[in-house]
């Protein structure tokens, strides 16, 4: 046995021993925290939905009853998404949809929109965006209450040609100097409403996935 082999074997064994101990410890921790992590992730999602859809309005497990939605051009989604369906006493009361406004100032704006079964918006939240800090980012609820302008609006409330920012002759407020971002959001929300009004029947007939994530 050459000196090389002897030395290499020794080092390999030592390193393997450390790897064994370390990985085992990780495995134990992972098992111990697995349930807690899943629970807190679900809690986080529910908390987000609760912002736009009061929990009192439904009684089902909204996460479990989510339906797989293929990519829908009208929603701006390019990947399958989840549609969270809220039921009360087994009857549909609202749906929470993911949508994307593609024409933000600096790229896509990801939205979460809750629509009641009567076509009225319960609430909208921006999930992610890349708008200019301090300029376009007032669409975030943490920065401004602007996003609440959609609460209670519906296709009935404003005719289609008034689903615009005030600068373009519509109904929606905006901040001077930053019109592109609200314009994109308003347009996206309007498109979602239009799509919803045509498809809400189908939405509730989709099979639930039972997904928890």
């Amino acid at each position: 046995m050459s000196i090389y082999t002897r030395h290499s074997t020794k080092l390999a064994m030592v390193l393997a021993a450390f790897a064994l101990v370390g990985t085992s410890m990780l495995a134990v921790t992972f098992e111990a925290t697995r349930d807690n992590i899943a629970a807190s992730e679900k809690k986080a999602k529910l908390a987000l939905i609760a912002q736009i859809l009061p929990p009192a309005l439904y009684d089902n497990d909204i996460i479990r009853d989510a339906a797989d939605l293929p990519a829908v051009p009208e929603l701006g989604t390019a990947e399958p998404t989840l549609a969270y369906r809220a039921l009360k006493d087994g009857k549909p009361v609202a749906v929470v949809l993911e949508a994307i406004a593609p024409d933000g100032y600096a790229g896509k704006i990801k939205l979460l929109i809750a629509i009641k079964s009567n076509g009225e918006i319960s609430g909208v939240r921006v999930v992610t965006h890349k708008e200019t800090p301090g300029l376009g980012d007032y669409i975030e609820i943490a920065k401004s209450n602007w996003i609440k302008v959609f609460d209670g609006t519906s296709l009935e409330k404003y005719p289609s040609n008034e689903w615009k920012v005030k600068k373009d002759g519509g109904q929606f407020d905006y901040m001077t100097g930053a019109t592109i971002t609200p314009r994109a959001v308003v347009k996206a929300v309007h498109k979602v409403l239009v799509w919803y009004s045509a498809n809400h029947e189908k939405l509730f007939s989709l099979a639930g996935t039972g997904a928890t994530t």
Partner: protein
Amino acid sequence: MLNALLVMIGLAVVLGAVLGFASLKFRVEGNPLVEKVDAILPQIQCGQCGYPGCKPYAEAISAGNSAINLCAPGGEAVMLRLADLLGVDPQPLAADAALPKPKQVALIDEQTCIGCTLCLQACPVDAIAGAAKQMHTIIASECTGCELCLPPCPVDCITMETVDEGLGGWKWKYPVYPISEEEKDTEVTS
């Protein structure tokens, strides 16, 4: 879970083996740092640092076995350059070494010299010419002024003479012109 364990252990075995091989294969002999340190030392070879010459001192510094403030002829300038090279904090020199000495060369009083060759053996740079029973002479251009020839001389015929370089050794001073009080401060300290 078992997969994760196996992957980790497998990786560990392979990497450990590779490292074990590499550590033997690519072992580096020698130390290029010694050359760099040696280049900074003034090469007077006086041994005041406690090492037999500049090179041994350079080796000791490179190995981290010696302080950087031992070179008396180099003074603060050499210490600072060593600190800079090695990335360590500057260390104050002993009080008597901090003052720079003027350049000196040894001079043999040829009337007194008995030609004993003891100074020849002491000179670290072979700057003393002469043979037994012959008068010795210092080759001034090669003398480093280390003073090592002084103690062995049985008749004390060697003295250190300060070299007056006159106009040849004159240098322009660093121009001082007022920018601000702040700059003046930093000038003084640097």
